[in-house]
Protein backbone atom coordinates (compact mmCIF):
# COMPACT_ATOMS: atom_id res chain seq x y z
CA UNK A 1 0.00 0.00 0.00
CA UNK A 2 2.69 2.46 0.91
CA UNK A 3 3.73 4.05 -2.30
CA UNK A 4 5.73 7.02 -1.08
CA UNK A 5 8.02 6.76 1.86
CA UNK A 6 10.00 9.88 1.28
CA UNK A 7 10.02 12.26 -1.59
CA UNK A 8 13.39 12.52 -3.28
CA UNK A 9 14.29 13.16 -6.84
CA UNK A 10 16.02 9.79 -7.14
CA UNK A 11 12.86 8.07 -5.99
CA UNK A 12 10.92 9.96 -8.60
CA UNK A 13 13.37 8.95 -11.36
CA UNK A 14 13.23 5.39 -10.13
CA UNK A 15 9.47 5.37 -10.32
CA UNK A 16 9.54 6.85 -13.82
CA UNK A 17 11.99 4.21 -14.98
CA UNK A 18 9.77 1.59 -13.41
CA UNK A 19 6.85 3.02 -15.31
CA UNK A 20 8.80 2.95 -18.56
CA UNK A 21 9.72 -0.66 -17.98
CA UNK A 22 6.17 -1.69 -17.46
CA UNK A 23 4.98 0.37 -20.40
CA UNK A 24 7.47 -1.49 -22.59
CA UNK A 25 6.24 -4.82 -21.29
CA UNK A 26 2.62 -3.91 -21.75
CA UNK A 27 3.16 -2.41 -25.18
CA UNK A 28 5.03 -5.44 -26.46
CA UNK A 29 2.71 -7.99 -24.93
CA UNK A 30 -0.70 -6.39 -25.30
CA UNK A 31 -0.74 -3.22 -27.35
CA UNK A 32 1.22 -4.44 -30.36
CA UNK A 33 -0.93 -7.51 -30.93
CA UNK A 34 -4.03 -5.37 -30.62
CA UNK A 35 -2.69 -2.88 -33.15
CA UNK A 36 -1.97 -5.63 -35.63
CA UNK A 37 -5.37 -7.17 -35.16
CA UNK A 38 -6.99 -3.81 -35.69
CA UNK A 39 -4.88 -3.08 -38.75
CA UNK A 40 -6.09 -6.29 -40.24
CA UNK A 41 -9.56 -4.83 -40.48
CA UNK A 42 -9.00 -1.06 -40.63
CA UNK A 43 -7.03 0.44 -43.51
CA UNK A 44 -4.07 2.60 -42.43
CA UNK A 45 -4.22 6.39 -43.01
CA UNK A 46 -2.87 7.70 -46.26
CA UNK A 47 -0.94 10.96 -46.28
CA UNK A 48 0.26 12.44 -49.54
CA UNK A 49 -0.32 9.19 -51.31
CA UNK A 50 1.85 7.24 -48.89
CA UNK A 51 0.25 4.63 -46.72
CA UNK A 52 1.28 5.08 -43.06
CA UNK A 53 1.69 1.52 -41.90
CA UNK A 54 3.66 0.25 -38.90
CA UNK A 55 6.54 -0.88 -41.09
CA UNK A 56 6.96 2.61 -42.41
CA UNK A 57 6.93 3.97 -38.87
CA UNK A 58 9.63 1.51 -37.85
CA UNK A 59 11.61 2.45 -40.92
CA UNK A 60 11.32 6.08 -39.92
CA UNK A 61 12.86 5.26 -36.58
CA UNK A 62 16.00 3.99 -38.25
CA UNK A 63 16.05 6.28 -41.27
CA UNK A 64 14.28 9.59 -40.53
CA UNK A 65 14.86 10.83 -44.05
CA UNK A 66 12.01 8.68 -45.24
CA UNK A 67 9.57 10.63 -43.11
CA UNK A 68 10.68 14.07 -44.18
CA UNK A 69 8.29 14.52 -47.12
CA UNK A 70 5.43 13.48 -44.88
CA UNK A 71 5.89 16.27 -42.33
CA UNK A 72 4.31 19.01 -44.36
CA UNK A 73 1.17 17.00 -45.20
CA UNK A 74 0.89 16.10 -41.52
CA UNK A 75 1.01 19.75 -40.58
CA UNK A 76 -1.74 20.44 -43.07
CA UNK A 77 -3.98 17.67 -41.83
CA UNK A 78 -7.09 18.73 -39.97
CA UNK A 79 -6.33 16.63 -36.91
CA UNK A 80 -2.95 18.29 -36.40
CA UNK A 81 -4.45 21.72 -36.84
CA UNK A 82 -7.17 21.12 -34.29
CA UNK A 83 -5.07 19.30 -31.75
CA UNK A 84 -1.70 20.97 -31.98
CA UNK A 85 -1.17 24.08 -34.08
CA UNK A 86 -2.89 26.53 -34.29
CA UNK A 87 -5.35 24.56 -32.23
CA UNK A 88 -5.68 23.52 -28.66
CA UNK A 89 -2.12 22.69 -27.65
CA UNK A 90 -0.77 25.96 -28.97
CA UNK A 91 -3.53 27.90 -27.24
CA UNK A 92 -3.04 26.05 -23.96
CA UNK A 93 0.70 26.65 -24.11
CA UNK A 94 0.11 30.28 -24.90
CA UNK A 95 -2.30 30.49 -21.98
CA UNK A 96 0.29 28.92 -19.68
CA UNK A 97 2.91 31.41 -20.79
CA UNK A 98 0.36 34.17 -20.24
CA UNK A 99 -0.28 33.07 -16.67
CA UNK A 100 3.42 33.02 -16.01
CA UNK A 101 3.95 36.36 -17.74
CA UNK A 102 1.11 37.84 -15.73
CA UNK A 103 2.50 36.71 -12.41
CA UNK A 104 5.99 37.86 -13.22
CA UNK A 105 4.97 41.16 -14.77
CA UNK A 106 2.71 42.00 -11.87
CA UNK A 107 5.50 41.08 -9.49
CA UNK A 108 7.91 43.35 -11.31
CA UNK A 109 5.41 46.19 -11.23
CA UNK A 110 4.95 45.62 -7.53
CA UNK A 111 8.67 45.62 -6.65
CA UNK A 112 8.59 41.89 -6.00
CA UNK A 113 10.19 38.80 -7.46
CA UNK A 114 7.15 36.66 -8.07
CA UNK A 115 7.30 32.87 -8.32
CA UNK A 116 10.91 31.84 -8.16
CA UNK A 117 11.89 28.94 -5.95
CA UNK A 118 9.43 26.32 -7.13
CA UNK A 119 11.02 22.95 -7.57
CA UNK A 120 14.46 23.94 -6.38
CA UNK A 121 14.77 21.05 -3.97
CA UNK A 122 14.30 18.43 -6.68
CA UNK A 123 15.68 20.04 -9.80
CA UNK A 124 18.93 21.93 -9.57
CA UNK A 125 18.05 23.92 -12.68
CA UNK A 126 14.71 25.08 -11.30
CA UNK A 127 15.84 28.54 -10.27
CA UNK A 128 17.32 29.22 -13.69
CA UNK A 129 13.81 28.96 -15.14
CA UNK A 130 12.79 31.88 -12.97
CA UNK A 131 9.93 29.98 -11.41
CA UNK A 132 8.25 28.52 -14.47
CA UNK A 133 7.86 25.24 -12.63
CA UNK A 134 5.41 27.05 -10.36
CA UNK A 135 2.72 26.63 -12.99
CA UNK A 136 3.35 22.91 -13.28
CA UNK A 137 3.21 22.63 -9.51
CA UNK A 138 -0.09 24.50 -9.44
CA UNK A 139 -1.49 22.26 -12.16
CA UNK A 140 -0.40 19.06 -10.43
CA UNK A 141 -1.74 20.26 -7.13
CA UNK A 142 -5.12 21.08 -8.64
CA UNK A 143 -5.16 17.63 -10.25
CA UNK A 144 -4.81 15.95 -6.89
CA UNK A 145 -7.25 18.18 -5.08
CA UNK A 146 -10.62 17.13 -3.82
CA UNK A 147 -13.54 18.55 -5.76
CA UNK A 148 -16.33 19.53 -3.43
CA UNK A 149 -19.83 19.61 -4.84
CA UNK A 150 -22.10 21.66 -2.59
CA UNK A 151 -25.14 19.92 -1.24
CA UNK A 152 -28.17 20.84 -3.28
CA UNK A 153 -26.07 21.74 -6.28
CA UNK A 154 -27.36 20.98 -9.74
CA UNK A 155 -24.75 18.33 -10.34
CA UNK A 156 -24.83 17.89 -14.14
CA UNK A 157 -24.61 21.62 -14.78
CA UNK A 158 -22.07 22.08 -12.03
CA UNK A 159 -19.81 19.50 -13.61
CA UNK A 160 -20.49 20.49 -17.20
CA UNK A 161 -19.87 24.22 -16.88
CA UNK A 162 -16.05 24.14 -16.72
CA UNK A 163 -15.89 21.81 -19.68
CA UNK A 164 -18.31 23.92 -21.69
CA UNK A 165 -16.27 27.02 -20.95
CA UNK A 166 -13.08 25.37 -22.15
CA UNK A 167 -14.78 24.10 -25.27
CA UNK A 168 -16.29 27.49 -26.07
CA UNK A 169 -12.94 29.19 -25.54
CA UNK A 170 -11.23 26.62 -27.71
CA UNK A 171 -13.90 27.13 -30.34
CA UNK A 172 -12.82 30.76 -30.61
CA UNK A 173 -9.28 29.88 -31.56
CA UNK A 174 -10.46 27.69 -34.41
CA UNK A 175 -11.54 30.80 -36.30
CA UNK A 176 -8.43 32.92 -35.96
CA UNK A 177 -5.84 32.77 -38.74
CA UNK A 178 -2.25 32.79 -37.52
CA UNK A 179 -0.61 32.78 -40.93
CA UNK A 180 -1.77 32.68 -44.56
CA UNK A 181 -3.74 29.49 -44.80
CA UNK A 182 -3.10 28.53 -41.21
CA UNK A 183 -6.56 28.49 -39.79
CA UNK A 184 -8.66 25.57 -38.66
CA UNK A 185 -12.01 26.73 -39.97
CA UNK A 186 -11.68 29.24 -42.76
CA UNK A 187 -15.30 30.18 -43.19
CA UNK A 188 -16.69 33.27 -44.88
CA UNK A 189 -18.48 34.61 -41.81
CA UNK A 190 -15.92 33.80 -39.17
CA UNK A 191 -16.37 37.17 -37.47
CA UNK A 192 -20.03 36.37 -36.89
CA UNK A 193 -19.07 32.95 -35.65
CA UNK A 194 -16.74 34.56 -33.12
CA UNK A 195 -19.59 36.60 -31.69
CA UNK A 196 -21.85 33.58 -31.70
CA UNK A 197 -19.28 31.71 -29.63
CA UNK A 198 -18.82 34.65 -27.28
CA UNK A 199 -22.53 34.39 -26.58
CA UNK A 200 -21.94 31.07 -24.88
CA UNK A 201 -20.08 32.54 -21.96
CA UNK A 202 -22.74 34.58 -20.14
CA UNK A 203 -25.18 31.71 -20.28
CA UNK A 204 -22.66 29.18 -19.03
CA UNK A 205 -21.53 31.47 -16.25
CA UNK A 206 -25.08 32.08 -15.15
CA UNK A 207 -25.86 28.39 -15.19
CA UNK A 208 -22.70 27.56 -13.29
CA UNK A 209 -23.45 30.14 -10.65
CA UNK A 210 -27.05 29.03 -10.33
CA UNK A 211 -26.03 25.40 -10.13
CA UNK A 212 -23.71 26.14 -7.21
CA UNK A 213 -26.69 26.74 -4.92
CA UNK A 214 -24.94 29.42 -2.96
CA UNK A 215 -25.40 33.13 -2.47
CA UNK A 216 -22.15 34.68 -3.57
CA UNK A 217 -21.96 32.69 -6.81
CA UNK A 218 -25.51 33.73 -7.56
CA UNK A 219 -24.72 37.44 -7.20
CA UNK A 220 -21.55 36.92 -9.20
CA UNK A 221 -23.45 35.13 -11.93
CA UNK A 222 -26.00 37.93 -12.21
CA UNK A 223 -23.18 40.46 -12.37
CA UNK A 224 -21.49 38.44 -15.08
CA UNK A 225 -24.73 38.34 -17.00
CA UNK A 226 -25.16 42.11 -16.82
CA UNK A 227 -21.61 42.75 -17.73
CA UNK A 228 -21.13 40.29 -20.55
CA UNK A 229 -24.38 41.03 -22.27
CA UNK A 230 -24.13 44.79 -22.05
CA UNK A 231 -20.56 44.77 -23.29
CA UNK A 232 -21.21 42.55 -26.26
CA UNK A 233 -23.07 45.36 -28.02
CA UNK A 234 -20.17 47.82 -28.07
CA UNK A 235 -17.89 44.91 -28.90
CA UNK A 236 -19.85 44.17 -32.03
CA UNK A 237 -20.31 47.84 -32.89
CA UNK A 238 -16.59 48.46 -32.54
CA UNK A 239 -15.93 45.85 -35.17
CA UNK A 240 -18.58 47.17 -37.58
CA UNK A 241 -16.30 49.81 -39.24
CA UNK A 242 -13.77 47.10 -39.94
CA UNK A 243 -16.35 45.10 -41.75
CA UNK A 244 -17.28 48.26 -43.67
CA UNK A 245 -13.69 49.00 -44.57
CA UNK A 246 -12.68 45.48 -45.42
CA UNK A 247 -16.08 44.59 -46.90
CA UNK A 248 -15.78 41.05 -45.66
CA UNK A 249 -16.74 39.05 -42.60
CA UNK A 250 -13.94 36.60 -43.00
CA UNK A 251 -11.05 37.10 -40.61
CA UNK A 252 -8.57 36.03 -43.27
CA UNK A 253 -10.06 38.61 -45.58
CA UNK A 254 -9.84 41.28 -42.91
CA UNK A 255 -6.15 40.57 -42.40
CA UNK A 256 -5.52 40.64 -46.11
CA UNK A 257 -7.29 44.00 -46.34
CA UNK A 258 -4.69 45.46 -43.98
CA UNK A 259 -1.63 44.98 -46.20
CA UNK A 260 -1.46 48.74 -46.83
CA UNK A 261 -2.80 50.13 -43.53
CA UNK A 262 -3.44 48.56 -40.18
CA UNK A 263 -6.95 49.34 -39.14
CA UNK A 264 -5.81 50.72 -35.80
CA UNK A 265 -4.47 53.73 -37.73
CA UNK A 266 -7.82 54.32 -39.43
CA UNK A 267 -10.20 53.60 -36.56
CA UNK A 268 -8.27 54.07 -33.31
CA UNK A 269 -11.48 54.70 -31.40
CA UNK A 270 -12.74 51.32 -32.45
CA UNK A 271 -9.55 49.71 -31.24
CA UNK A 272 -9.92 51.42 -27.89
CA UNK A 273 -13.54 50.36 -27.51
CA UNK A 274 -12.69 46.85 -28.55
CA UNK A 275 -9.85 46.67 -26.04
CA UNK A 276 -12.00 47.92 -23.18
CA UNK A 277 -14.87 45.60 -24.01
CA UNK A 278 -12.46 42.72 -24.41
CA UNK A 279 -11.25 43.37 -20.88
CA UNK A 280 -14.86 43.30 -19.72
CA UNK A 281 -15.55 40.10 -21.63
CA UNK A 282 -12.54 38.52 -19.99
CA UNK A 283 -13.68 39.61 -16.50
CA UNK A 284 -10.27 41.03 -15.84
CA UNK A 285 -9.40 43.97 -13.59
CA UNK A 286 -10.73 46.64 -13.87
CA UNK A 287 -13.85 44.70 -14.87
CA UNK A 288 -13.55 41.64 -12.67
CA UNK A 289 -16.81 42.36 -10.89
CA UNK A 290 -18.19 38.84 -11.20
CA UNK A 291 -15.17 37.63 -9.22
CA UNK A 292 -14.74 40.71 -7.01
CA UNK A 293 -12.91 39.32 -4.01
CA UNK A 294 -13.61 41.96 -1.43
CA UNK A 295 -17.34 42.08 -2.17
CA UNK A 296 -18.55 38.62 -3.13
CA UNK A 297 -15.67 36.29 -2.16
CA UNK A 298 -14.83 34.82 -5.54
CA UNK A 299 -18.10 35.45 -7.32
CA UNK A 300 -19.36 32.65 -9.48
CA UNK A 301 -16.13 30.74 -8.92
CA UNK A 302 -16.70 30.49 -5.17
CA UNK A 303 -17.87 26.90 -5.02
CA UNK A 304 -15.50 25.46 -7.62
CA UNK A 305 -12.52 23.61 -6.27
CA UNK A 306 -9.77 21.41 -7.55
CA UNK A 307 -9.46 20.76 -11.23
CA UNK A 308 -12.87 22.27 -11.98
CA UNK A 309 -11.41 25.56 -10.86
CA UNK A 310 -8.28 24.84 -12.86
CA UNK A 311 -10.33 24.24 -16.00
CA UNK A 312 -12.18 27.50 -15.55
CA UNK A 313 -8.90 29.35 -15.18
CA UNK A 314 -7.57 27.59 -18.26
CA UNK A 315 -10.69 28.62 -20.17
CA UNK A 316 -10.21 32.20 -19.01
CA UNK A 317 -6.66 32.38 -20.23
CA UNK A 318 -7.43 30.63 -23.52
CA UNK A 319 -10.16 33.20 -23.96
CA UNK A 320 -7.66 35.91 -23.17
CA UNK A 321 -5.38 34.53 -25.86
CA UNK A 322 -8.29 34.33 -28.29
CA UNK A 323 -9.39 37.91 -27.70
CA UNK A 324 -5.83 39.22 -27.91
CA UNK A 325 -5.44 37.31 -31.16
CA UNK A 326 -8.72 38.76 -32.35
CA UNK A 327 -7.50 42.26 -31.55
CA UNK A 328 -4.33 41.53 -33.48
CA UNK A 329 -6.29 40.19 -36.39
CA UNK A 330 -8.76 43.03 -36.55
CA UNK A 331 -6.60 46.03 -35.78
CA UNK A 332 -2.92 45.17 -35.85
CA UNK A 333 -2.80 43.45 -39.22
CA UNK A 334 -2.70 39.87 -37.99
CA UNK A 335 0.30 38.05 -39.38
CA UNK A 336 1.50 40.94 -41.53
CA UNK A 337 5.13 41.86 -41.00
CA UNK A 338 8.48 41.80 -42.73
CA UNK A 339 9.70 38.41 -43.87
CA UNK A 340 13.05 38.03 -42.28
CA UNK A 341 13.15 34.59 -40.74
CA UNK A 342 14.62 31.67 -42.71
CA UNK A 343 12.45 28.82 -43.82
CA UNK A 344 12.50 25.58 -41.87
CA UNK A 345 13.85 22.60 -43.77
CA UNK A 346 14.19 19.00 -42.69
CA UNK A 347 16.57 16.87 -44.79
CA UNK A 348 16.36 19.43 -47.56
CA UNK A 349 12.59 19.18 -47.68
CA UNK A 350 10.93 22.49 -46.93
CA UNK A 351 8.49 22.20 -44.03
CA UNK A 352 7.59 25.84 -43.44
CA UNK A 353 8.36 28.59 -45.88
CA UNK A 354 10.09 31.78 -44.83
CA UNK A 355 6.83 33.68 -45.13
CA UNK A 356 4.98 31.29 -42.90
CA UNK A 357 7.62 31.33 -40.19
CA UNK A 358 7.70 35.11 -40.19
CA UNK A 359 3.91 35.32 -40.16
CA UNK A 360 3.62 33.03 -37.18
CA UNK A 361 6.35 34.99 -35.45
CA UNK A 362 4.67 38.34 -36.04
CA UNK A 363 1.27 37.04 -35.05
CA UNK A 364 2.59 35.57 -31.82
CA UNK A 365 4.57 38.69 -30.95
CA UNK A 366 1.63 41.02 -31.57
CA UNK A 367 -0.79 38.83 -29.66
CA UNK A 368 1.59 38.59 -26.75
CA UNK A 369 2.01 42.34 -26.79
CA UNK A 370 -1.74 42.90 -26.60
CA UNK A 371 -2.03 40.41 -23.76
CA UNK A 372 0.84 42.09 -21.94
CA UNK A 373 -1.00 45.35 -22.25
CA UNK A 374 -4.01 43.75 -20.58
CA UNK A 375 -1.75 42.58 -17.77
CA UNK A 376 -0.34 46.07 -17.29
CA UNK A 377 -3.86 47.46 -17.05
CA UNK A 378 -4.48 44.96 -14.28
CA UNK A 379 -1.45 46.15 -12.37
CA UNK A 380 -2.38 49.80 -12.43
CA UNK A 381 -6.11 49.97 -11.89
CA UNK A 382 -8.64 49.14 -9.22
CA UNK A 383 -11.94 47.47 -9.88
CA UNK A 384 -14.88 49.56 -11.05
CA UNK A 385 -18.39 49.48 -9.68
CA UNK A 386 -21.27 47.74 -11.37
CA UNK A 387 -23.24 50.94 -11.97
CA UNK A 388 -20.22 52.76 -13.38
CA UNK A 389 -19.57 49.76 -15.55
CA UNK A 390 -23.06 49.67 -16.96
CA UNK A 391 -23.23 53.43 -17.43
CA UNK A 392 -19.93 53.48 -19.28
CA UNK A 393 -20.95 50.50 -21.33
CA UNK A 394 -24.36 51.70 -22.38
CA UNK A 395 -23.71 55.39 -22.85
CA UNK A 396 -20.08 56.11 -23.52
CA UNK A 397 -18.80 53.03 -25.28
CA UNK A 398 -21.81 52.69 -27.54
CA UNK A 399 -21.63 56.40 -28.41
CA UNK A 400 -17.94 56.04 -29.16
CA UNK A 401 -18.69 53.03 -31.33
CA UNK A 402 -21.18 55.02 -33.36
CA UNK A 403 -18.70 57.86 -33.84
CA UNK A 404 -16.32 55.21 -34.96
CA UNK A 405 -18.78 53.88 -37.50
CA UNK A 406 -19.30 57.40 -38.87
CA UNK A 407 -15.55 57.84 -39.24
CA UNK A 408 -15.34 54.62 -41.16
CA UNK A 409 -18.21 55.59 -43.42
CA UNK A 410 -16.66 59.00 -44.00
CA UNK A 411 -13.35 57.40 -44.90
CA UNK A 412 -15.17 55.17 -47.30
CA UNK A 413 -17.06 58.00 -49.02
CA UNK A 414 -14.03 60.25 -49.20
CA UNK A 415 -12.33 57.45 -51.01
CA UNK A 416 -9.39 57.22 -48.65
CA UNK A 417 -9.76 53.50 -48.23
CA UNK A 418 -12.35 50.92 -48.99
CA UNK A 419 -13.63 48.50 -51.52
CA UNK A 420 -12.43 50.11 -54.66
CA UNK A 421 -9.19 51.34 -53.25
Amino acid at each position, binding site marked *: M*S*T*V*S*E*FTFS*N*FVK*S*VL*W*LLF*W*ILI*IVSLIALPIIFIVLFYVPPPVINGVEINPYLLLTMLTNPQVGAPLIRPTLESLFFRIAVFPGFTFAALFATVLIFAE*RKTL*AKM*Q*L*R*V*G*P*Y*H*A*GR*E*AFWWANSLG*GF*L*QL*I*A*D*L*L*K*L*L*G*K*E*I*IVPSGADKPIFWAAPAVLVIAAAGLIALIPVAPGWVIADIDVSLLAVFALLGFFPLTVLLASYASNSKYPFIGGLRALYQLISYEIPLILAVLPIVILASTLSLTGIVEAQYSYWFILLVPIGAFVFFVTALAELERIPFDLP*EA*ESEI*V*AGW*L*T*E*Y*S*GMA*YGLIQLANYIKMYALSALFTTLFLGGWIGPEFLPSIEVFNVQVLSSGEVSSIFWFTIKTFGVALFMIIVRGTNPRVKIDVLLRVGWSKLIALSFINVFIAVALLYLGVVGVGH
Partner: protein
Amino acid sequence: MLRELLSPKRESSRGALDGERPANFNILVGKLSEVLVKAIDKPLGYAINWGRLWSLWPVHLETACCSLEFGAASGPRYDVERFGIIEAFGSLRQCDLMVIQGTVTRKMAPRVRMIYDQMPEPKYVIAMGACAITGGLYFDSYNVLPGIDGVIPVDVYVPGCPPRPETLIQGCILLQEKIKRTRFR
Protein backbone atom coordinates in the same frame (compact mmCIF):
# COMPACT_ATOMS: atom_id res chain seq x y z
CA MET B 1 -6.68 7.54 -5.85
CA LEU B 2 -6.57 5.58 -9.04
CA ARG B 3 -5.66 2.46 -7.16
CA GLU B 4 -8.82 2.42 -5.10
CA LEU B 5 -10.82 3.10 -8.21
CA LEU B 6 -9.53 0.14 -10.11
CA SER B 7 -9.20 -2.42 -7.37
CA PRO B 8 -11.40 -1.39 -4.50
CA LYS B 9 -11.69 -4.82 -2.87
CA ARG B 10 -8.05 -5.75 -2.89
CA GLU B 11 -7.65 -5.75 0.86
CA SER B 12 -10.52 -8.14 1.47
CA SER B 13 -9.53 -10.46 -1.35
CA ARG B 14 -6.26 -11.05 0.39
CA GLY B 15 -7.95 -12.46 3.45
CA ALA B 16 -8.75 -16.01 2.45
CA LEU B 17 -10.47 -16.74 5.75
CA ASP B 18 -13.27 -14.36 4.91
CA GLY B 19 -14.69 -16.92 2.59
CA GLU B 20 -15.84 -14.32 0.15
CA ARG B 21 -13.28 -15.05 -2.46
CA PRO B 22 -10.39 -17.48 -2.56
CA ALA B 23 -7.00 -15.87 -2.32
CA ASN B 24 -5.81 -17.18 -5.63
CA PHE B 25 -8.89 -16.07 -7.47
CA ASN B 26 -7.82 -15.13 -10.94
CA ILE B 27 -4.32 -14.33 -9.78
CA LEU B 28 -3.07 -13.27 -13.19
CA VAL B 29 -5.72 -10.59 -13.62
CA GLY B 30 -5.19 -9.40 -10.06
CA LYS B 31 -1.46 -9.07 -10.50
CA LEU B 32 -1.80 -7.38 -13.85
CA SER B 33 -4.24 -4.78 -12.55
CA GLU B 34 -1.99 -4.17 -9.59
CA VAL B 35 0.95 -3.62 -11.84
CA LEU B 36 -1.04 -1.37 -14.12
CA VAL B 37 -2.28 0.74 -11.25
CA LYS B 38 1.11 0.98 -9.64
CA ALA B 39 2.75 1.86 -12.89
CA ILE B 40 0.55 4.91 -13.29
CA ASP B 41 -0.12 5.75 -9.70
CA LYS B 42 3.39 5.80 -8.36
CA PRO B 43 4.96 8.43 -10.61
CA LEU B 44 1.74 10.41 -10.65
CA GLY B 45 1.63 10.27 -6.88
CA TYR B 46 5.15 11.59 -6.68
CA ALA B 47 4.38 14.33 -9.14
CA ILE B 48 1.19 15.44 -7.41
CA ASN B 49 2.89 15.40 -4.05
CA TRP B 50 5.62 17.54 -5.50
CA GLY B 51 2.99 19.93 -6.83
CA ARG B 52 1.52 20.23 -3.35
CA LEU B 53 4.86 21.31 -1.99
CA TRP B 54 5.11 24.34 -4.14
CA SER B 55 1.55 25.39 -4.48
CA LEU B 56 0.22 26.23 -1.03
CA TRP B 57 -2.62 28.69 -1.38
CA PRO B 58 -3.56 30.14 1.99
CA VAL B 59 -7.15 30.75 2.96
CA HIS B 60 -8.04 34.33 3.84
CA LEU B 61 -8.73 33.86 7.51
CA GLU B 62 -7.54 36.32 10.07
CA THR B 63 -8.01 35.54 13.71
CA ALA B 64 -5.96 38.25 15.41
CA CYS B 65 -3.06 40.64 15.15
CA CYS B 66 -0.55 38.28 13.54
CA SER B 67 -2.38 38.93 10.28
CA LEU B 68 -0.33 42.09 10.08
CA GLU B 69 2.89 40.17 9.79
CA PHE B 70 1.23 37.77 7.40
CA GLY B 71 0.43 40.75 5.22
CA ALA B 72 3.99 41.95 5.52
CA ALA B 73 5.19 38.51 4.47
CA SER B 74 3.31 38.81 1.21
CA GLY B 75 4.69 42.30 0.74
CA PRO B 76 7.62 43.11 -1.48
CA ARG B 77 10.43 42.63 1.01
CA TYR B 78 9.53 39.10 2.01
CA ASP B 79 7.32 38.06 -0.91
CA VAL B 80 6.07 34.59 -0.10
CA GLU B 81 4.95 34.24 -3.71
CA ARG B 82 8.54 33.18 -4.42
CA PHE B 83 7.61 29.96 -2.67
CA GLY B 84 4.31 29.61 -4.47
CA ILE B 85 2.21 30.99 -1.63
CA ILE B 86 -0.05 33.64 -3.12
CA GLU B 87 -1.43 36.25 -0.79
CA ALA B 88 -5.00 36.25 0.50
CA PHE B 89 -6.99 33.97 -1.71
CA GLY B 90 -10.65 34.50 -2.43
CA SER B 91 -12.69 31.40 -1.83
CA LEU B 92 -11.70 28.76 0.68
CA ARG B 93 -12.73 26.04 -1.76
CA GLN B 94 -9.54 26.65 -3.70
CA CYS B 95 -7.19 26.79 -0.74
CA ASP B 96 -4.84 24.24 0.79
CA LEU B 97 -3.23 26.11 3.63
CA MET B 98 -4.79 27.60 6.69
CA VAL B 99 -2.63 29.95 8.69
CA ILE B 100 -4.12 30.60 12.11
CA GLN B 101 -2.93 34.14 12.51
CA GLY B 102 -2.89 34.63 16.22
CA THR B 103 -5.30 34.38 19.13
CA VAL B 104 -8.36 32.22 18.71
CA THR B 105 -11.19 33.38 20.91
CA ARG B 106 -14.12 31.36 22.05
CA LYS B 107 -16.33 33.13 19.57
CA MET B 108 -13.96 32.44 16.70
CA ALA B 109 -13.17 28.80 17.45
CA PRO B 110 -16.39 27.27 16.03
CA ARG B 111 -15.93 29.33 12.90
CA VAL B 112 -12.36 28.18 12.50
CA ARG B 113 -13.51 24.59 12.76
CA MET B 114 -16.29 25.23 10.23
CA ILE B 115 -13.88 26.80 7.78
CA TYR B 116 -11.47 23.94 8.22
CA ASP B 117 -14.22 21.44 7.51
CA GLN B 118 -15.24 23.26 4.36
CA MET B 119 -11.80 23.21 2.82
CA PRO B 120 -11.08 20.48 0.30
CA GLU B 121 -8.52 17.80 1.01
CA PRO B 122 -5.56 17.88 1.30
CA LYS B 123 -5.31 20.76 3.75
CA TYR B 124 -2.57 21.93 6.03
CA VAL B 125 -2.59 24.14 9.07
CA ILE B 126 0.10 26.46 10.37
CA ALA B 127 -0.42 27.86 13.85
CA MET B 128 1.20 31.27 13.74
CA GLY B 129 2.12 33.13 16.89
CA ALA B 130 2.31 32.30 20.56
CA CYS B 131 -1.43 32.81 21.06
CA ALA B 132 -2.37 30.23 18.45
CA ILE B 133 0.02 27.75 20.04
CA THR B 134 -0.66 28.10 23.76
CA GLY B 135 -2.69 31.22 24.30
CA GLY B 136 0.45 33.28 24.71
CA LEU B 137 0.07 36.53 26.57
CA TYR B 138 -3.61 35.83 26.98
CA PHE B 139 -3.19 32.65 28.97
CA ASP B 140 -5.46 33.96 31.73
CA SER B 141 -8.08 35.65 29.60
CA TYR B 142 -11.63 34.46 29.96
CA ASN B 143 -12.30 34.43 26.25
CA VAL B 144 -9.17 32.95 24.70
CA LEU B 145 -8.50 29.35 23.80
CA PRO B 146 -5.22 27.92 25.10
CA GLY B 147 -3.99 27.02 21.65
CA ILE B 148 -5.75 26.03 18.48
CA ASP B 149 -4.73 22.38 18.44
CA GLY B 150 -7.74 21.38 20.47
CA VAL B 151 -9.94 22.56 17.63
CA ILE B 152 -8.14 21.56 14.46
CA PRO B 153 -5.06 19.47 13.76
CA VAL B 154 -1.95 21.58 13.34
CA ASP B 155 0.96 20.70 11.08
CA VAL B 156 3.50 23.37 11.88
CA TYR B 157 3.86 25.70 14.85
CA VAL B 158 5.49 29.06 14.20
CA PRO B 159 6.35 30.73 17.50
CA GLY B 160 6.76 34.43 18.05
CA CYS B 161 4.63 37.33 19.19
CA PRO B 162 4.14 38.11 16.40
CA PRO B 163 6.52 35.95 14.38
CA ARG B 164 8.66 37.89 11.98
CA PRO B 165 7.87 37.24 8.31
CA GLU B 166 11.13 35.31 7.99
CA THR B 167 9.89 32.96 10.70
CA LEU B 168 6.65 32.45 8.84
CA ILE B 169 8.54 31.61 5.66
CA GLN B 170 10.63 29.14 7.62
CA GLY B 171 7.41 27.61 8.90
CA CYS B 172 6.19 27.21 5.33
CA ILE B 173 9.44 25.50 4.37
CA LEU B 174 9.03 23.17 7.34
CA LEU B 175 5.56 22.38 6.10
CA GLN B 176 7.02 21.56 2.69
CA GLU B 177 9.44 19.17 4.39
CA LYS B 178 6.50 17.58 6.10
CA ILE B 179 4.51 17.19 2.90
CA LYS B 180 7.56 15.61 1.29
CA ARG B 181 7.52 12.95 3.95
CA THR B 182 3.80 12.29 3.90
CA ARG B 183 2.33 9.44 1.98
CA PHE B 184 0.37 10.37 -1.07
CA ARG B 185 -3.32 9.78 -0.65
